């Protein structure tokens, strides 16, 4: 099975395009097809959201996706089973979960990590688990060979060094203040943040997310870092097209993959 690092070694320019979808929106069957389609289009890493009732780091687009998935009755176990089906179809794209601390904690951190490894995932992103609280999660995940991705934000300043030194997989650079969602402009000095990470830890890739929707933004962010992450723009397409979202998402990620590969 491939690793998170492979996602950044996959392309000639060393840049990765990372796509996010919420599992179970609009249904787990459609999510399964979305993952396969995005992998076929060359998406380098997929973030699979496990729905949570109160996703406090998300803007309205992804909040709504979480609620749509939960309204279908989607559970953590259902998401694990769906990943198993994806891997069973021979899809080997690196994948990480993105969810909230309580989803993992209530399942049992060790039990969650074990099942996550069994179904063939590579790591996890927990936006409500900052550096100070990460040991409780990182250790059981590491015991299963899974990586806990750390985030840095425009407010992180002197915290970036410590976060980067202990980072696993990749560093998720939050481009802007606020929650997830499409933005017209990203005004943060991303280049400076990336430089602080690289100074502290030259081995860990940095990918930029929050607010990216256009190929131009993705190319610019990938040029300043090692990759671009897109979530809300994809979720909007899913919300717009429902069961018929696979082809529009496929077409969209194709342009984004292309933009990042030529960044």
């Amino acid at each position, binding site marked *: 099975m491939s690793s998170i690092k492979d996602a950044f070694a996959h392309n000639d320019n060393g840049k990765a395009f990372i796509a996010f979808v919420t599992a179970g929106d609009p249904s787990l069957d459609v999510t399964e097809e979305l993952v396969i389609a995005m992998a076929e289009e060359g998406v380098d890493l997929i973030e699979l959201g496990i729905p949570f009732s109160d996703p406090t780091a998300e803007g309205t687009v992804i909040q709504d996706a979480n609620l749509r998935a939960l309204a279908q009755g989607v559970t953590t176990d259902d998401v694990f089973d769906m990943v198993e089906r994806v891997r069973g179809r021979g899809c080997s794209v690196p994948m990480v979960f993105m969810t909230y601390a*309580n989803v993992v904690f209530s399942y049992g951190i060790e039990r969650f990590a074990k099942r996550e490894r069994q179904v063939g995932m590579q790591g996890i992103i927990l936006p409500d688990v*900052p550096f*100070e*609280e990460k040991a409780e999660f990182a250790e059981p995940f590491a015991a299963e060979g899974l990586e806990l991705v750390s985030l840095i934000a425009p407010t992180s300043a002197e915290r970036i060094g410590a*976060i980067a030194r202990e980072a696993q997989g990749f560093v998720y650079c939050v481009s802007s203040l606020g929650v997830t969602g499409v933005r017209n402009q990203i005004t943060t000095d991303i280049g400076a943040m990336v430089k602080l990470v690289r100074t502290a830890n030259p081995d860990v890739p940095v990918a930029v997310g929050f607010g990216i929707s256009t190929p131009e933004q993705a190319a610019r962010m990938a040029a300043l870092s090692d990759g671009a992450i897109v979530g809300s723009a994809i979720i909007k397409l899913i919300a717009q097209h429902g069961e018929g979202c696979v082809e529009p998402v496929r077409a969209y990620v194709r342009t984004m993959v292309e933009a990042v590969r030529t960044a």
Partner: protein
Amino acid sequence: MSNSPSSRGRFGIHGGQYIPETLMNAVIELEEAYNRYKDDSSFNAELTDLLNNYAGRPSLLYFAANMTADLGGAKVYLKREDLNHTGAHKINNVLGQALLAKRMGKTRLIAETGAGQHGVATATAAALMGMECLVYMGVEDMERQALNVYRMRLLGAEVRGVSAGTGTLKDAVSETFREWTNRIDDTHYCLGSVMGPHPFPTIVRDFQAVISREARAQILEAEGRLPDAVLACVGGGSNAIGSFYHFIGDEGVRLIGCEAAGRGIDTWETAATMNTGKLGIFHGMKSYFCQDEYGQIAPVYSISAGLDYPGVGPEHAWLHDTGRAEYVPVTDEEAVSAFEYLSRTEGVIPAIESAHAVAHAIKLAPTMRPDQSIIVTLSGRGDKDVAAIARYRGEDLHE
């Protein structure tokens, strides 16, 4: 103090700082500022002056003679936080935090509110101190507490309705955290209860501890001895922790938190976290939460908008674990009956939140001896609830 939190705000296993990285420096900066000012004499002099000359402290410890005679057991004393300016205990914390925010150079306060009491208190402090104010309130609660919405707007605050999720307090908290990540530089999140990430549970506890500091001295003055029990309602738990704090070291004093059981703890329509929840991580803290087997936060219910919250502050979770405090469920029906009882018996209309504590006192006092005493904290006054209680009893008032 033995129950100061450990590093990063742990009360036993509870508490912590489970928040997005974007907010970490903001809470670190808040903790540093709080540590700098909490023992600063000019800060404390200014706060005491505001509490005494603006909010009307100290609040009375009133001997409820009629209630005591009627119940025929322990003497019942009411700690009258309902007599504070703005009508609830919330002002104690808000004046402290607003003053702290000003010292930190912040010009804007944001807050969540359930029943609207914390929102009104925050809007009041902002008006007094010349700060901008934005309050998030669930749309369901705006409906239940329309009067408080108007009060906040009258005080110059902006009130934004939150329709996400259940449209109640938990969603207002989530939305206020989201707004804080969006604008940190000039903005302080004036959190209304002993919850959220460290240092909020400690800061709010310290500002509310004035309740038990006064009550302990007042009961010693009145009775010459400590009370046998202290009762307070618990949503997030700020008036309860404030009522308990200076009695925690007094082992003979029972500390009893009264949770909102809604339609009963054997139904789904409840908000009794200690009695029905399990350990989890949400809104910045590890504590007990009402949730399903996959950790999805439960859509809790109570007639009281102020207690309609699926979690509880981490210090309460710890007091529960150690057995130092007890947490009992009180149903809507019991609370409404107590609301009516206190109005009729003592001429005091309590907030429906506080009526949960009164309800338990009605059960407890008759089981005790006449030489014993209990303190019941009346966290707020009930004017805001009159229309809703009338509706509960099948009358439709036109205000």
